[in-house]
């Protein structure tokens, strides 16, 4: 199994723990990643400013992948939705002729062949459950995990063609359960992390994130498991800031799905980037190391 690995902007600069763990886990499962040096931003952060520019950036990235005859594995949910929307729009009736012509003028061709999948979706859809289980060396039972899906992992649903269920999501939880860990449900599971408004109205963004931390503390989960670096920025990177701002105390570790699976696979802390998580994970994971 071979994919072009699309890192996007946030991961290589700010979420190397996600990148490290994704590469480590993929390699255990025999998934080969091809790095493409010329990738640029997926276009998502440009969407509110100029949809045409965002589409062009997405299509440019997909053209690079198509040229290599590969499909894409994404790690960030926003990248996933931006690229999936472009891929999906090629199959619709919309006319992209002039934008494709702009690409061609620069020497790039995109015909819409590339499939875009988030790494969790690949694990869920393309890798046999037994195969995943066989890579496990540790039993994570006893860990109480609150899963945060985020928004763009499966929305807007019309472009994801039936993947997961935005009103009753289950795919990440099913993967977490493979490790023996217990998934705990909580109110507000489907709430957005608030990240996109951070540059506009910090207080509102932090308040949205706080509501979820409150809900998760209430049900007594040991950790939050998620699949997007923006969401991690809100719950892990900003957790201390939220505690200070609202005079609260959470101390809830936040792990990427790939980190959690990596722990179950018996992979060391360092190749999972666990030392880079802001809320410390050492005590939580003591018994596995």
């Amino acid at each position, binding site marked *: 199994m071979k994919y072009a690995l699309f890192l996007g*902007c946030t991961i*290589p600069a700010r979420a190397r723990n996600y990148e490290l763990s994704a590469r480590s886990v993929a390699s255990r499962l025999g998934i080969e990643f091809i790095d493409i040096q010329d990738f640029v*931003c997926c276009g998502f952060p440009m969407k509110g*400013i100029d949809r045409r520019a965002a589409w062009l950036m997405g299509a440019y990235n997909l053209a690079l992948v198509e040229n290599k005859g590969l499909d894409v594995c994404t790690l960030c949910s926003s990248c996933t939705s931006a690229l999936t929307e472009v891929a999906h729009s090629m199959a619709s009736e919309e006319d992209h002729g002039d934008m494709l012509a702009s*690409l061609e003028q620069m020497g790039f061709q995109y015909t819409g062949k590339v499939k875009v999948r988030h790494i969790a979706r690949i694990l869920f859809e393309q890798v046999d459950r037994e195969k995943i289980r066989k890579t496990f060396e540790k039993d994570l039972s006893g860990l109480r995990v609150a899963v945060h899906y985020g928004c763009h992992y499966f929305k807007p649903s019309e472009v994801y063609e039936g993947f997961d269920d935005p009103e009753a999501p289950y795919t990440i939880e099913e993967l977490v359960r493979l490790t023996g860990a217990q998934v705990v449900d909580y109110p507000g599971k489907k709430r*957005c992390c608030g990240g*996109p408004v951070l540059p506009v109205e910090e207080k509102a963004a932090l308040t949205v994130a706080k509501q979820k931390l409150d809900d998760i503390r209430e049900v007594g989960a040991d950790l939050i498991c998620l699949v997007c670096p923006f969401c991690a920025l809100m719950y892990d990177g900003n957790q201390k800031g939220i505690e200070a701002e609202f005079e609260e105390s959470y101390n809830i570790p936040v792990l990427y799905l790939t980190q959690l699976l990596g722990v179950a696979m018996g992979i060391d802390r360092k190749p999972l980037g666990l030392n880079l998580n802001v809320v410390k994970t050492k005590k939580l994971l003591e018994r596995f190391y």
Partner: protein
Amino acid sequence: MEKGTCNQGTQRKLVLSNERIAGLLKELLDCSEAQGISACFMCRTCSSSCPIATLEKGFDPVKLIRMCLYGLWDQLLRDPTLWLCTSCYACQERCPQGIKIADFITVLKNLAVKKGEPPPGIKAQREIITQAGRVYPLDEFDNKKRAKMGLPELPTTCTVVGRLIGAE
């Protein structure tokens, strides 16, 4: 539905002195996202699903839709609360009338940018992406850190995005 008929206001003759605004308005009424909004029957499913509307009094997706339907376009494109939408799609997924609310708000944001200035944070984001090709540009120091972790080095400059979108 015929293009432009989504809004009763379009039946009226547009008396807009400013041609640029008239152009933006045409763009708004022509885009597929705005075509369906007249189907809104004010059930407020969108508002009650919205993570922002529940905590910021000034923000409400249905308010933006109604403003458009009532022809308050100038005011709509000036509304700073547009930028509070996180594009989480909670509203859009649930609207019983199938209105593409989040996409519609994205269109409004695009037109607001064309009309004037985006908020400073958004503007800075646009500039950095156009110049560096990414939101968080990488430098040699980052690459050293990456190499130490066994991660591949990545380019520290990029001109392609500027060429791709900058010329517009």
